[in-house]
């Protein structure tokens, strides 16, 4: 995937680092109160923990949809706790986010959905055409460029969502239960895409409650339980092929 290989990592330090981070909604009780963790560049972490432990909330802090109610959040070495909304928007362009429910724009074709991040970033249409076509080829959806999301299967929608997440060549990919709505065989194929993206240089945080998936890959687990977070060793010792 030449497109995704081009981007040099233009920062030093961790992709994400949290120091004593707490989050509460509208001054309510804290979902977690003291999370400290560092996600190095080019790493792959599962994000695990019981339902309601705050996996989605923790991810939404990382993709800058929420601000921590306490503590410090650093993204690519930059403290974003007090960053302006415009700065947050620029930083999001270095992130890719994949959701369980895909979150495609239903009135747009597959192509336009994937092209959206590039067009928003003001990339020229020639580059958009070339990069989006290449990516849709890579995720195996070259024949569905003009299809609307409504006619795609769950697995196809998630591949569109993954293509959209990586079209900006992100340094960090955040996935929130990306295999939650598809069967095991498709989950496995999607997982392969994430492994490949990781090999191409992106760090990945992959939230899931699918224990069998976690058990099959040799990646450490960022485990959220109660209000604490810990990094647990991989469940699997198998090596992914290069």
């Amino acid at each position: 995937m030449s497109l995704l290989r081009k981007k040099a990592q233009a920062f030093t330090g961790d992709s994400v680092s949290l120091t004593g981070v707490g989050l509460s909604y509208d001054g309510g009780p804290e979902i977690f109160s003291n999370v400290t963790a560092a996600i190095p560049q080019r790493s792959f972490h599962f994000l695990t923990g019981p339902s309601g432990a705050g996996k989605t909330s923790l991810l939404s802090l990382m993709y800058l949809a929420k601000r921590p109610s306490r503590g410090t959040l650093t993204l690519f070495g930059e403290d974003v706790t007090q960053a302006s909304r415009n700065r947050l928007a620029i930083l999001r362009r270095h992130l890719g986010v994949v959701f369980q429910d895909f979150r495609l724009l239903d009135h747009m074709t597959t192509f336009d959905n994937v092209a959206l991040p590039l067009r928003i970033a003001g990339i020229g249409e020639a580059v958009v055409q070339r990069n989006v076509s290449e990516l849709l080829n890579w995720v195996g959806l070259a024949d569905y460029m003009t299809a609307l999301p409504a006619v795609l299967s769950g697995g196809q929608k998630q591949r569109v969502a993954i293509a959209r997440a990586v079209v900006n060549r992100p340094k960090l990919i955040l996935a929130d239960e990306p295999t939650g709505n598809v069967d095991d065989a498709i989950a496995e194929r999607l997982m392969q895409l994430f492994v490949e993206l990781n090999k191409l240089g992106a760090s990945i945080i992959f939230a899931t409650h699918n224990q069998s998936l976690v058990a099959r890959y040799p990646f450490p687990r960022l485990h959220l339980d109660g209000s604490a977070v810990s990094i647990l060793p991989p469940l699997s010792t198998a090596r992914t092929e290069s």
Partner: protein
Amino acid sequence: MFSVRSDLPLRRDIANRFVVWLVMVLVFMSALAVTVNSYVDVLLDDWNRSVTGTLTVQIPVSDAGDKAAQASAAKVLDVLKRHPAVAKANLVPRAKLTELLKPWLGEGDAVSDLPLPALVDVQLGDDSPSAIAAITASVKTASPSAVIDDHRVWLARVMGLAKGFSAVALAIMILVTAALGLTIIFATRASLAEFATVIEILHVVGAKDGYVAGQFARRALIQAILGGLAGLILYAPALGLIAWLASRVDPEVLPHATLPLAHWLALAALPFVAGGIAMVTAHITVRRTLASKI
């Protein structure tokens, strides 16, 4: 290049279809207000021009009979014609007087038998207040019962009426602008709520607030221009009807006026002014609403 691509699903949006209809009504009302204002302006200008620099001298019907009145009128006319400040003085013929009264009193013996005052129409060479005072003094000497009217009181009152019309037209424009602004604010807020998921996705993939606001602003602009053009289309037959009804009224009562080019340009600009107001309002509303989050 101007892109017509929109990230917002337009067809589902009910709040903003309502904007088109409302702008149509508002522009229709504004167009009528502008027209009334322009018509009154033209009329007054006309009257103003026709009475400036003129005087009317009236020699009332005398108890001493027609002969005395005619002698008195002749004397006044003579004084006026010889006065240095007077350019021209003419006795208004009786036929012209009955003609002027026709729209109000009709024709027939009742009118022709009516004792009418003698009227002298005076064009001034010098219409300064001192010249008018000098003329008044001379006329009074010649005929103490003569009444001199320099139209100023009449004109001042008509001007007052015109200013009233202008103020009402201005008030309508202010109300219409306020209604447009409020409509856009509420319609934009409704769409922001309706498209919360779409906006969230746009943010996740790196859109700044300005980009999202631009999407709403461009749509508000297009909708307001469409509504405004529809309002003008609605206005055309209304103007035609009023013009036709007015043309049937005697011109002595309601003078016919040709509206100036500026009036038509102002009308043509209305949809675009509405578009501009809608665009700016939508932009500000979106930015404010988004800035209050996180």
